[in-house]
């Protein structure tokens, strides 16, 4: 059986590029694995609701482009902005003390081995991983040294351009014991780009370390984004992570978190807002592999028009992982009768002394809330926008970095306004 997703152009381009020998051989292994694999179909459980037909029909290529635009700019955050253009690091700035960033072009032999080991240790069986490996544009290794409190937030500004442009990236974020950092990843593509990004992020949060992480999929138009975020938490580590997906043809992100030491804490929130014919699919998986860890997950979606979303939340509590606390909540607001959501908890609980709460709801706008607006003279159209915005804004309000909130709020108002500015004049 061979893979019906023809990526030969991309693989030839990868092979023609000048890359270090270790990467060439790692790519070769990825390419043969991908070529031998079978494309998931609607019968494959993990891809049941996510159509790949359109993605695989495009003859993807690798492009050398020059105009990537600005991508995302935060206001008043004092962040270090690190541009990644069609998968290539373009950064000449300065990093805060105790923070290092190297691209795979500059890895030593030992670093290359260690990088591969760390990436492979946190992999599951994601179909697109071997493509990522086989056509990898570049890997980047961000390290926050032991006990360092990174003085500035680090922003990975992923930019994409070109027509039928495929990009494969792998970011490794390593927060050493006792360190503390904030990392934002934003993904955009320039107007007119037809793009496919296959972006992987691998995170290791060391003992007593804390990472605040944003993973924001903001590509519009003819964009396809598939990929994984995979995090491992050591003893008493904390990961606070926020995900967002708006726009584009298809977005699919699999987020896996595994606990390697006791007393670790995860707070993971996310929002997705498909409209038009957009499809957004989040698969999360939390592995309580050791006792005494906490996970809190809140994902909210608003689905307009023919928008479609999937939220699949897996929680696995291993037999000896006593005193695990796992909380997962997924709420969805359907603004149109044609919108569709598939939400599914997958609980595998093998320990008895644990608390696991989960809930999923699918609703229209609340009539009581709507009437409250009307009874105060506010038009139904404006009330719907304010209520929808409020539903998502609850999670934005909880973000610890105000510049991130201030970046995202106007994007949401624009999304809800659909060109009618008077409907959004009372939201931030």
């Amino acid at each position, binding site marked *: 059986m061979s893979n019906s997703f023809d990526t030969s152009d991309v693989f030839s381009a990868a092979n023609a590029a000048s890359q270090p020998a270790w990467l060439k051989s790692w790519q070769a292994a990825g390419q043969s694995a991908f070529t031998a694999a079978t494309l998931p179909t609607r019968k494959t459980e993990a891809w049941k609701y996510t159509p790949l037909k359109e993605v695989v029909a495009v003859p993807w290529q690798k492009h050398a482009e020059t105009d990537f635009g600005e991508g995302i700019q935060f206001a008043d955050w004092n962040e270090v902005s690190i541009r990644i253009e069609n998968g290539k690091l373009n950064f000449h700035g300065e990093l805060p003390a105790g923070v290092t960033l190297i691209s795979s072009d500059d890895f030593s032999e030992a670093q290359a081995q260690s990088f591969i080991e760390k990436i492979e240790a946190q992999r599951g069986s994601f179909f697109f991983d071997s493509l990522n490996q086989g056509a990898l544009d570049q890997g980047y290794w961000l390290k926050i040294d032991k006990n360092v409190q990174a003085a500035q937030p680090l922003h990975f500004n992923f930019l994409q351009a070109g027509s039928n442009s495929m990009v494969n990236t792998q970011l490794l974020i390593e927060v050493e014991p006792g360190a503390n950092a904030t990392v934002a990843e934003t993904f955009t593509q320039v107007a007119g780009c037809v793009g496919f990004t296959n972006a992987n992020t691998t995170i290791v949060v060391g003992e007593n370390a804390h990472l605040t992480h944003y993973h924001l999929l903001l590509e519009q138009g003819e964009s396809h984004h598939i990929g994984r975020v995979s995090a491992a938490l050591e003893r008493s580590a904390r990961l606070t992570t926020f995900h967002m997906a708006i726009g584009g043809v298809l977005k699919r992100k699999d987020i896996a978190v595994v606990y390697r030491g006791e007393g670790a804490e995860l707070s993971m929130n996310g929002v997705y807002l498909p409209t038009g014919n957009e499809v957004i699919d989040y698969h999360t998986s939390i592995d309580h592999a050791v006792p005494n860890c906490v996970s809190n997950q809140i994902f909210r979606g608003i689905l307009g028009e023919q928008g479609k979303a999937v939220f699949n939340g897996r929680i696995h509590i291993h037999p000896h992982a006593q005193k695990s606390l796992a909380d997962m909540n997924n709420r969805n607001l359907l603004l149109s009768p044609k919108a569709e959501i598939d939400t599914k908890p997958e609980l595998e609980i093998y320990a008895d002394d644990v608390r696991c709460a989960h809930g999923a709801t699918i609703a229209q706008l*609340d*009539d*009581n*809330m709507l*009437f*409250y*607006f*009307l*009874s*105060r*003279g*506010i*038009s*139904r159209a*404006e009330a719907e926008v*304010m*209520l929808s*915005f*409020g*539903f*998502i*804004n*609850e999670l934005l*309000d909880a973000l610890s970095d105000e510049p991130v909130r201030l970046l995202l709020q106007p994007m949401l108002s624009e999304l809800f306004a659909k060109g009618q500015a008077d409907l959004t*004049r*009372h*939201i*931030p």
Partner: protein
Amino acid sequence: MLSIKNLQASVEEKQILKGLDLTINPGEVHAIMGPNGAGKSTLGNVLAGRDGYEVIGGSVDFHGEDLLELDAEERARKGLFLAFQYPVEIPGVSNMEFLKASVDAVRESKGLAPYTSVEFIKLAREKSKAVNLPADFLKRGVNEGFSGGEKKRNELLQMMLLEPSLCILDETDSGLDIDALQVVADGVNSQRSPDRSFIVVTHYQRLLDYIVPDYVHVLAGGKIVKSGGSELAKELEAHGYGWIEKETV
């Protein structure tokens, strides 16, 4: 300003209002009392235009217009205000944004320009003070985590900002201690004027010691079964509703 004739309404196929008559002139304060389940909140909801409350007979004239023909938001813009018995919580929408949206909508319908943010914040702070609601409540989600009394004061705050001509207060006193009751009563009294009328729905005579009504009506079994002056409230307090129900049988 308001003339209700033979109003009949049902909720979920069940008739609740069974021929209710009530006329209110500008500047008057009418108290409506009555046992639980009599239909007091239903009357408020029907007047405010809530979905699911079906009018099956009768008429309501408000400032010379057929009120029942108007959408809920139009009624509010034309000066009708209902202070809810159980105000809903709306997390994620700040009280300030909500208040401004509402005041702008009502002003716009009168051909007035919206307030600037600065003007509005000043006004909202001023009015919050008048109802003894700390200013930081303006930044919180609408009614989010407010106590019962705080929610009621937030209703009053909205009333003061919207300057309606008819205020329907649905048990705005319930669940309040005596100090909070005083605040609510002061708020209402400060808004009394020759062209503003009130319907004060209450369970207890207590509130009417502070807000002295021009008329007291007893609503039972879906109609007004007895009307009188403010002394009627005292009789009700002393004897309960039983004697009226007997009298009308």
